[in-house]
């Protein structure tokens, strides 16, 4: 039974992670590069409809990934070792995931609420917020590469 629960928690962690990173890569590989090519009158389709919906699943995917990842680490008994880098193979990945999740909830999401007009803001605040959201989203894209490597190599020793 315990093995099944461990498996289920791992499955939920990966499920949420796919939701999160899938949408992160959608933002960075598809939406951001496409926006300049979209006529201005059609841009609200992205900013008013698609982006808010994507951001909902994106941030809750991040929250779920962290929650189930921490539960998994505690249940498997390596949480302290990993976070203190006594087990660096998964520890680095965990730290990157935590930093990425922090970026999502405390930098990207607040900035996107301003950039998309979901909260009141000055006219000059919107482009600054949009740029801040883009830079931190790119930071998360950068971190996702070693983070995924850490996840896979921890489960497939000896990695490289």
């Amino acid at each position, binding site marked *: 039974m315990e093995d099944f629960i461990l498996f289920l928690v791992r499955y939920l962690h990966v499920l949420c992670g796919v939701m999160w990173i899938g949408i992160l890569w959608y933002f960075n590989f598809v939406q951001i*590069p496409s926006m300049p090519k979209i006529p201005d009158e059609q841009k609200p389709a992205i900013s008013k409809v698609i982006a808010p919906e994507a951001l909902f699943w994106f941030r809750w995917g991040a929250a779920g990934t962290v929650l189930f990842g921490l539960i998994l680490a505690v249940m498997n008994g390596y949480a302290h070792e990993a976070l203190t880098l006594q087990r660096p193979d998964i520890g680095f990945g965990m730290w990157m995931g935590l930093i990425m999740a922090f970026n999502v909830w405390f930098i990207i999401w607040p900035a996107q609420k301003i950039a998309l007009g979901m909260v009141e803001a000055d006219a000059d605040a919107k482009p600054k917020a949009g740029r801040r959201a883009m830079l931190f989203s790119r930071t998360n894209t950068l971190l996702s590469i070693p983070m995924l490597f850490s996840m896979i190599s921890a489960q497939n020793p000896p990695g490289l």
Partner: protein
Amino acid sequence: MSKILESLPMTIVAGIVLTVIMVMATNYLEETNKSDAEKLISDVMK
């Protein structure tokens, strides 16, 4: 740093570079964290 992040290809390259650095750091920390007995065993097995 923002110059790198403004370019998606450069961001990917930076991610790969960070991965290499992470692997080197992981190997270093794992060697450092080994007990004397574990070091002896891994030396014998090389």
